[in-house]
């Protein structure tokens, strides 16, 4: 994994010292709130409903054990002993006090972490496939490119005042686990005639105007990635709508100008940026060396795994849902669910963070990942160690076997924390998970993604949920609108509204009706929820949701 150089350390130390001084000047009255607010936002500090909130970047979702331990320490020393992992591969602390934040940032810097560019109209934390470097299906590890982009865009003068925030995601595999189609730029590593390059998508985004990204080029070589991205940002800087915040994202620019026109403009600028580009010297090679794959154990049997799989139904159930194929058959990728039924999606206590750090150190080559699905991943675990890993996780309340199932819900903080929210999301997620657990139907239902946002900003990705839930304020009452048919992977699609929304006390039964309707109408157990929806369309779900007779029967 990337290790900070002296340059990064000096840069962070300077930024933190500046921010410490800015906080002092705000407190002693030399800075007004209007002056201070953009400064604190540049350093990831928001003011929410009940307290400040510090958003810390976890670049491409990768963490070492020492970093996870530090996150735990910070949560105990300056917060309330837990952290919230988000869809943007960040961690948020919900209760810091203003005076403590400079100390928190210093503590982060000790382990090479920071909160810079987690806010503002800049290139945000570059996200990547959380299975990067481990997945059986990838062309190459996307993280070196994410890191290259991070280094290049951090504090880049041309990109500090973009028309609006700018989000880039990179994946190394065809199966899109980084939701690249919902990012301003999505990069997919591809191989063409033995050469590594990128398929580039542009103009994806969620928020109040959701758009699926469009392919701007099918191939740009590794060497030309930076000048190509620079060309896109340059065109965006010129054409982006600075007059209207709601039209300022590149997705609107692409929609208004058309992808062909944007492609023409980008190609024209690219001629220049490519010429001016002097190459990245050995920077990429050095970064790649930092991401060298771990030395995997060879020749050790996996009998312990097979035995546990045969003998323990609990282990088998967990193995079936929470493990993913590793490129090495003797290893597995472990997804640790932060979605215990009834718990807050994405939250981990300090003790849980320390346990995950310990397991990563002992059994997982010191690597942890945060997924946009708000779970934690141990990317390289030998199969023989899985029974022990599972046992330790279970003791800590981290053994829930539900990854990819109905209770593995993405939920934004919603009105329990967020100042922009129009309704709550967390309690809805908690209640749905509790309900499907009571009914014991989620293993039968199988793969379905439920995603919840507490307002149209769509931080909870509801548009691309198989089932999306959007919380709104309807005349002073929380009301929830359902969409069906969205998808976040390489089959990305925006969901369609089912019809009128539901009040808080009716939303869980409504979701239950959708799930049982699917069970009734699917061809067989192999047909997933989204496949069934694509076959039958909205009509049966609408009937189940709105037909009075039926809803009374179900109630």
């Amino acid at each position, binding site marked *: 994994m990337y290790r900070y150089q002296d340059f990064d350390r000096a840069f962070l130390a300077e930024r933190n010292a500046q921010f410490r001084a800015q906080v002092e000047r*705000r*407190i002693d*009255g030399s800075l*007004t*709130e209007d002056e201070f607010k953009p400064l604190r936002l540049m350093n990831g500090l928001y*003011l*929410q*409903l*009940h*307290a*400040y909130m510090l958003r810390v970047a976890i670049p491409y979702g990768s963490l070492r054990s020492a970093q996870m331990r530090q996150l735990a320490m910070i949560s105990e020393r300056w917060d*309330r002993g837990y952290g919230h992992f988000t869809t943007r591969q960040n961690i948020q602390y919900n*209760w*810091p*006090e*203003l*005076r403590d934040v400079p100390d928190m940032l210093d503590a982060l810097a000790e382990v090479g972490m920071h909160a810079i560019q987690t806010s503002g109209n800049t290139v945000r934390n570059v996200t990547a496939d959380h299975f990067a470097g481990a997945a059986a299906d990838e062309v190459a590890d996307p993280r070196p490119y994410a890191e290259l982009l991070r280094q290049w865009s951090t504090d880049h003068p041309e990109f500090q005042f973009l028309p609006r925030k700018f989000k880039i995601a990179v994946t190394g595999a065809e199966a899109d686990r980084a939701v690249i189609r919902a990012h301003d730029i999505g990069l997919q590593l591809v191989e063409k005639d033995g050469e590594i390059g990128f398929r580039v998508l542009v103009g994806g985004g969620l928020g109040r105007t959701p758009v699926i990204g469009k392919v701007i080029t099918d191939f740009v070589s590794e060497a030309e990635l930076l000048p190509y991205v620079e060309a896109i940002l340059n065109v965006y800087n010129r054409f982006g709508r600075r007059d209207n915040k709601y039209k300022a994202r590149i997705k609107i620019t692409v929609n208004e100008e058309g992808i062909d026109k944007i492609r023409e403009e980008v190609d024209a600028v690219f001629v220049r940026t490519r010429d001016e580009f002097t190459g990245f010297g050995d920077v990429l090679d050095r970064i790649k060396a930092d991401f060298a794959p771990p030395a995997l154990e060879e020749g050790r049997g996996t009998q312990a795994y097979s035995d546990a799989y045969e003998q323990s139904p609990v282990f088998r159930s967990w193995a079936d849902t929470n493990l993913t194929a590793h490129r090495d058959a003797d290893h597995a990728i472990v997804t640790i669910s932060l979605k215990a039924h009834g718990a*807050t999606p994405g*939250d981990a206590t300090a003790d849980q963070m320390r346990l995950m750090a310990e397991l990563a150190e002992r059994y997982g080559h010191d690597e942890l990942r945060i997924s946009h699905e708000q779970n934690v991943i141990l990317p390289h675990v030998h199969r023989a160690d899985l029974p022990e890993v599972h046992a330790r996780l279970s003791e800590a309340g981290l053994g829930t076997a539900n990854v990819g199932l109905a209770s593995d819900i993405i939920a934004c903080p919603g*009105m*329990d*924390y967020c100042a922009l*929210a129009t309704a*709550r999301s*967390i*309690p809805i997620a*908690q209640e749905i998970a509790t309900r499907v657990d009571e009914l014991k139907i989620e293993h039968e239902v199988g793969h379905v993604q439920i995603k919840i946002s507490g307002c149209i900003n769509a931080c909870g990705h509801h548009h691309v949920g198989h089932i999306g839930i959007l919380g709104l*304020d309807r005349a*002073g*009452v*929380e009301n929830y609108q359902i969409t069906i048919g969205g998808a976040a992977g390489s089959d990305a699609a925006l969901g369609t509204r089912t019809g009128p929304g539901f009040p808080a006390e009716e939303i869980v039964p409504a979701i239950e009706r959708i799930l049982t309707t699917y069970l009734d109408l699917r061809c067989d157990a192999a047909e997933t929820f989204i496949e069934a929806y694509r076959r039958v369309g909205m009509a049966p779900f609408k009937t189940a949701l709105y037909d009075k007779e039926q809803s009374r029967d179900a109630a």
Partner: protein
Amino acid sequence: MPPRSFSPKVVTANRLLEGDAVWLTPSGRWSPDMREADLIEDEGRAAERLAEAESQAGLVVGPYLADAKAGPGGPEPTHFREAFRARGPSNYRLGKQAELTGS
């Protein structure tokens, strides 16, 4: 001329240092307990009190007028957003619900 109808308000903000929600009391103190807030029934007075709050940038951030109604223990929220601010999040017993006695 009868006064235009004005729905009662409280002045609320977040504390600069702690970041938590506070309400302006009749005596001009900032209280973490909404029930101690000054319930303002008059539009002119609301504007005055808001201006007073805005002059205290060293203590609070983002003061605004929020709708409220009289309750047995003091002013109460009328909208759920303000109810959450007065109580704390629903997923943990943190914030006001844990910090204030008698709530």
